[in-house]
């Protein structure tokens, strides 16, 4: 998978990496059991400190999205963390309120927001995921 970072971004670099890996898992571009680059590989590829990569992997591991196996590397978790449906919907509701408020302040309508959601869905689940889904 392709990770790109931007040092001047609102998010610190370790969070940018976390977000991109979580997006890729959510969109099916990374699937359970897939191997992630090592700390050293990603550090040299992105030209960032190895400890920054370690920090983002550690946080993702604590959240249950990835798991490191001693001597073998780091992999996407085969079973993703189970968050209760109620918790998940309440988190989503907060995010949805924020999204709608931002949209309405910007003069968009509900229909426009739905189109934005469709575009975002397309970005998340771009090409590779489609083929994989057919297999599954």
């Amino acid at each position, binding site marked *: 998978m392709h990770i790109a970072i931007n040092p001047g971004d609102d998010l*610190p670099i370790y969070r940018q990496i976390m977000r991109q890996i979580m997006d890729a898992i959510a969109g099916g571009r990374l699937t359970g059991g897939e191997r992630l680059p090592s700390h050293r590989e990603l*550090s*040299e590829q992105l030209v*960032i400190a190895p400890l*920054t990569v370690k920090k983002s992997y550690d946080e993702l591991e604590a959240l249950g999205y990835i798991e490191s196996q001693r001597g073998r590397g780091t992999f996407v978790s085969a079973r993703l963390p189970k968050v209760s449906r109620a918790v998940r919907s309440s988190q989503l509701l907060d995010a949805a309120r924020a999204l709608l408020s931002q949209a309405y302040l910007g003069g968009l309508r509900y229909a426009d927001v739905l189109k934005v959601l469709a575009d975002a869905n397309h970005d998340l689940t771009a090409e590779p995921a489609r083929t994989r889904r057919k297999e599954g």
Partner: protein
Amino acid sequence: MPTTPVLEFRDIARSFRRGEPVLSDVSFSLAREEVVALLGRNGSGKTTLIQIAMGMLFPHAGTVRVFGMSPIHEPVAVKKRIGYVAEQQILPSRSTIPDLMAFHRYLFPTWDVELERSLLARFGLSGNSSRMRQLSKGEARQVALICAVAHRPELLILDEPAGGLDPAARREFLETSIQLLNREGTAILFSSHHMGDVERLGGRVVLLDEGRVRVDDDLDALRESYCIAIIPRYAAHAITMIEQLPECLKVHQQYTDWHAVFRGTPQRVQALLHDAFGLNNVQCATVPLEELFIELVGEDRRAEAS
């Protein structure tokens, strides 16, 4: 020896003219594999501090230890294990690149010829036998970097490594430093004005302001647990008290409002200002490193406004 820091400054003071201290009460240390970015305005004492670590200047008060040794009393033992690139590196102008490499190979028993060759190749300097005075500024700094790292130092000290380099050369410099971090676990102390480079090298940030340590914290903490609160004009009466809060690092007037830099997340600071002063909905936000730097060490805008 996990207990001995690689580099330790304790209560360092130094001045060049009586009564005008360049550094006062500077204390911090670096552990193995740690990266510390030394930030501050021009003239804030960064280079002086680095020269004290290198044993090139002695402190007027306090102690400096490198690998537990004094860099002034044991210069050879210390320098064997340090790599150093000065802000204005002076390389012997008549020496050629191969001369300089041969000299360093002779000087350092741990010199790694393979690393030397691979860095010369990466910088496009293989087979180049120019004299130092014929090199461009970028090439000279690349040569200085090779001289600083090819003996595989345990501590690398870089004084504005990016100074005067174009973006491509700066990136090569960073790539080399990151490879050292990955392969050797080298500790790095570097001063820089490029916040992008600071974010890439990560680690800790020590911010010097008028010769004192104003901030010493993790880079990610600076990004996530420091914020700027914009105190509106009508709350000006509370400014002196806000300034005295232990979480408040600096307050200054920005046109008609006041900006206060806090250690704490925006939510916490908002709650604090509400609980202590009854201020509602004060705008608090985390800011990029560059903004935080300017807020912390920038001039007070009052003078300009009046």
